[in-house]
């Protein structure tokens, strides 16, 4: 406690020190007032949220304590409460920590792209914890900026869609989950996750550190939809490669399904008056 007080004295604004003293005297309402509505100061945010969690719990506001711990752990996922903390607080903190760690590990399932599709469908496995929202920020190959895609809960997953990319390469992304009003990110704009994108008909990219998709296999695709401008060599390659595509796809399907022949459903959408 003395060490905490010293640390706060050296690094913290006066309100945080005051709040700690008031908390130690069991003057929880005043301690909360001394903390203010938010812990905005970057230097003291973590000890501020930690103390706020203790104060809220003492006031019987478990939801407020939980939110404070979420904000703290979102910045410092390896944080711990330390010794001499009540079992109730330890249990709450431990539960929040597991939730935050789970959200920080969320990933997008491999992106699937086929000929004729103008839309990519993204899918994220639903985490154990209930979310108030989940957003995907994705930068398609060749693009610098991230576009936001709000994901919608569908059964045991969150899904969303975006316009399909026009070129191969690495797609970068990060996810931001809304956990009780607190954003918890998996990846970031400065440290995004990555997915290898390969359009049907193009050569596989060289091995890299990016995530690869089980669907991202040579031959599992179909020609680029008609109507897109294509150089002559590409058109010839696609036509000539069509047989290879089918043959490889059938072979892979046989290997994957233990011998049963794969079939195809070719869906065509038309309008009729």
């Amino acid at each position: 406690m003395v060490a905490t007080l010293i640390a706060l004295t050296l690094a913290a604004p006066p309100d945080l020190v005051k709040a700690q003293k008031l908390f130690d005297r069991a003057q929880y309402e005043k301690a909360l007032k001394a903390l203010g509505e938010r812990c905005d100061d970057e230097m003291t945010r973590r000890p501020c949220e930690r103390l706020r969690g203790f104060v809220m719990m003492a006031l019987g506001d478990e939801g407020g304590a939980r939110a404070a711990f979420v904000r703290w752990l979102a910045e410092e996922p390896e944080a711990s409460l330390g010794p001499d903390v009540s079992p109730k607080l330890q249990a709450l903190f431990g539960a929040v920590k597991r939730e935050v760690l789970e959200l920080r590990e969320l990933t997008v399932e491999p992106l699937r792209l086929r000929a004729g599709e103008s839309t990519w469908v993204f899918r994220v496995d639903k985490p154990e914890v209930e979310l108030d929202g989940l957003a995907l920020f994705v930068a398609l190959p060749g693009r610098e900026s991230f576009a936001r895609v709000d994901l919608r809960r569908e059964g045991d997953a969150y899904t969303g869609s975006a316009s399909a990319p026009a070129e191969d390469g690495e797609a970068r992304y990060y996810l931001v989950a809304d956990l009780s009003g607190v954003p918890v990110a998996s990846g970031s704009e400065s440290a995004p996750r990555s997915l290898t994108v390969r359009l049907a008909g193009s050569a596989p990219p060289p091995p890299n550190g990016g995530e690869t998709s089980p669907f991202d296999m040579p031959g599992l695709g179909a020609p680029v939809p008609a109507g897109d401008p294509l150089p002559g060599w590409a058109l010839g390659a696609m036509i000539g490669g069509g047989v290879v595509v089918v043959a490889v796809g059938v072979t892979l399907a046989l290997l994957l399904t233990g011998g049963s022949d794969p079939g195809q459903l070719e869906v065509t959408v038309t309008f009729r008056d």
Partner: protein
Amino acid sequence: MMQRCGLLLVVLGAACGGPALVVHTAVRLDAQLAGEVTSLNVYAFGPERKDGVMLTCPTLMLGDVAPTDKRLDLLDSAVVAVSGGATVTLDEVAAGPNRLVYVEGKNAGGVVIANGCTEYIKVEEGASSEVEVDVYRLQ
């Protein structure tokens, strides 16, 4: 009585010069619904769930289980934008006698407003059958 929303999915068996097990599926939309349904989710399932329970069309149609439920034997799926001439291929539909095709129609906001389903679809060499999948507006 369910209101037909004019969306008819016809599954035809035919050979088209590629692999033998190709089933052509034509989706016909009534002009009245063209402005509402902007995309379709098409799913192909095996008949048995991973927990041993048989999958049926009513289960999906009534929303008892989501098409993305991991217990389902999802063979393949795709999204197709509802526009004239758009195509999509599900090319990993394992052969067998009892395949199930489930279709969801979504509006521009991504909300499912219609669905349809057909089961007992044969994806077998030499099979040539016509199967109709009627997509109804959700009640």
